[in-house]
């Protein structure tokens, strides 16, 4: 039972992070029909921003502000910074290619991914950075359930992720901006004709998606410790898988897909072998594409007759 609970907790933490990244994928695909393969690296940049904010405030061993305030600031600054970076990437790398064949922005996205990875490598080196979160958010603050320790950071990750996911759902369903976003995702030209500022809507969509990835990066540093310039690639692939499994373009689908992938990875590592966890996750992707290409929550494409 202990192993089950431990695995469940670990899977939920990882799943929440995949879900946050997957939301960015799905939002951008919704408005632009673009698979932004640089999105995983925005998560990586967020992790580095959070790390240096922590260092700036004296962390990990000589903090000058209370730890809860530090965590809030790390997430806020990483979110805003990476959000702005995402907007910049959209403006200069993707907008000029909006009317180009679909392959062009896809390849550009791959190029941006490499640029981000190598820029971080050049600026900060390949040496792993350690958040050392247990120094300022000690393990002694854990909750104990049936012999399993649930660390406060793990609770923070799940709680913040749930709040962000529900916040996004409310934003999309109940605000004017959300309506604009849905309109642009449905039919960009018609939305423009109706007076919606498409460029601004797309830019803000990128901002929100990138900000969420940035916050996910900070939380991954807090929960896992080590960050390097290559953590974004595999996380991005898994989040893409989550978005596809859940239904690319569907926000609830991305949330559920992320949790499914995280739990799948965690349980297969624990109960089968960590050697097969990637195999199982990507086999799930292939199975989804073969059996239900639109994903669990996606709608099959309409055929005009």
């Amino acid at each position, binding site marked *: 039972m202990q192993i089950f609970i431990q695995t469940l907790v*670990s*899977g939920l933490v990882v799943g929440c992070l995949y879900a946050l990244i997957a939301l960015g994928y799905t939002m951008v695909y919704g408005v632009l029909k673009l698979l932004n393969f640089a999105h995983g690296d925005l998560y990586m940049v967020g992790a580095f921003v959070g790390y240096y904010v922590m260092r700036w405030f004296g962390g990990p061993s000589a903090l000058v502000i209370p730890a809860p305030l530090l965590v809030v600031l790390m997430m806020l600054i990483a979110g805003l910074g990476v959000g702005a970076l995402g907007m910049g990437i959209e403006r200069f790398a993707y907008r000029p290619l909006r009317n180009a064949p679909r392959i062009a922005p896809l390849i550009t996205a791959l190029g941006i991914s490499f640029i981000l990875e190598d820029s971080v490598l050049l600026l900060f080196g390949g040496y792993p950075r*350690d958040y050392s979160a247990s120094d300022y958010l000690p*393990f002694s603050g854990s909750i104990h359930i049936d012999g*399993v320790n649930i660390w406060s950071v793990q609770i923070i990750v799940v709680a913040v992720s749930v709040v962000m996911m529900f916040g996004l759902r409310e934003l999309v369903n109940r605000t004017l901006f959300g309506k604009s976003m849905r309109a642009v995702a449905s039919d960009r030209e018609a939305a423009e004709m109706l007076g919606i500022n498409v460029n601004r809507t797309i830019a803000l969509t990128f901002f929100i998606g990138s900000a969420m990835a940035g916050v996910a990066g900070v939380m991954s540093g807090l929960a896992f410790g080590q960050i*390097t310039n290559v953590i974004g*690639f595999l996380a991005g692939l898994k989040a893409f898988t989550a978005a596809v499994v859940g239904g690319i373009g569907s926000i609830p689908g991305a949330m559920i897909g992320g949790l499914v992938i995280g739990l799948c990875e*965690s349980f297969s590592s624990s109960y089968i072998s*960590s050697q097969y966890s990637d195999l199982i996750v990507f086999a799930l992707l292939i199975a989804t594409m073969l059996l239900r290409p639109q994903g669990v929550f996606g709608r099959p494409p309409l055929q005009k007759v």
Partner: protein
Amino acid sequence: MKVRRIFAGTLGVMALASVTVFGGTSSAHVAKVAGAKIASTCSASIAIEAPFSTGPAIPLGLEQLHFAELAVAQANKANGTNITLGQDNTGLVPATAVSAARSIIASSAVAMIGPAGSQEVEAVGPVIAKAGLAAISGSATLPALTTDGKNPTFFRVVPDDDVQGPRDAAYILAHGLAGAKGSTILIVDDEEAYSEGLVAVMTPLLKAGGYTVNHQSYNGADTGATLQSDLSSLASKVTSSTHIVVIPWQSAGNAQQFGKTLEQQGKKAILFGTDGTNAPGTFIIPGSYSSNFGPDISQTKTALDESIVKGVAKYGPYGPFGVPTWQATTVAMDAIASVCKSGATPTRANVLAAIKKTDIPASQSPEGVPIQFKADGDLKAQAGFLFKIEAGGKYVEIPDK
């Protein structure tokens, strides 16, 4: 008359001054030229392959690079040579190591230091053998590298895992680190040749000691959330009857993250790492052990050790990976110098032949053992060192009884 005498005297003084100035300069110039000839006749280049900028072992790679650079500077000064050191990053990835080796082969390098990882030597060995390029590693310890016949120009200045593995297993058994007999020892490999080799050597010895061995694997190349899933699942396999987890990994960072995961889950097992985890400043879980083939020379007082410690002080904390790399580099440098002394121009062939004849006494080696090679490239002497990590991340060498 008086004017002529004054004129002649002035000319004489000028002539005398000229002889003094230009004659002195000429001899100094000749001396300088002669000196320059001695230094510049022994020019060559060597190159190092190490994971110093990408991959899971950057701290080790940087340490190796810094110690190699120091060895080149010291040997050039001592031998009067002009040997330069090129550098190529491998990230511990065999394919990258092969690309790096090809570019070294295409250059004028007459010898290579590294590669660092056993899996890299497996890939690179046959390639450099074809080019007749000698490679001396300070860290590739898989036994098969010198016994399978595929790497005839490969040498190492460290003992292989057939020494490290049994020594570590014997220490665990002799000091009761695994608890009472019948307890479980968890041993985890990272799916690389080095790690799997050590597991294969240690597992039967630990079983023979009366313990149950639970062998698990994880992908050492995983990063981020996937890595954490792997480590979390491994940690969940540590039960109350598991007193020790043996982790012969190539990444000290992963060892540190695993230690933190164990702590977070409230698990109390001792971590026992091998040389791949030995990195002060990175793997610092108190109560853990980490073996290595290089000593901690900061505690000895020989002039040689002090000169090395002083030479790398500016780079901050280092582990025992640097010393073997310093030694490997010095072997290459001395081989080139001996070729020059014999009046020949260094080539790959004559440098390789000189390396085979290396004979450095223990008193001149910071490893504390004589440096001589067997016919297969293995070091004749066999030595190993073990460290315990104390509070604050301090590595304390355990004396060899």
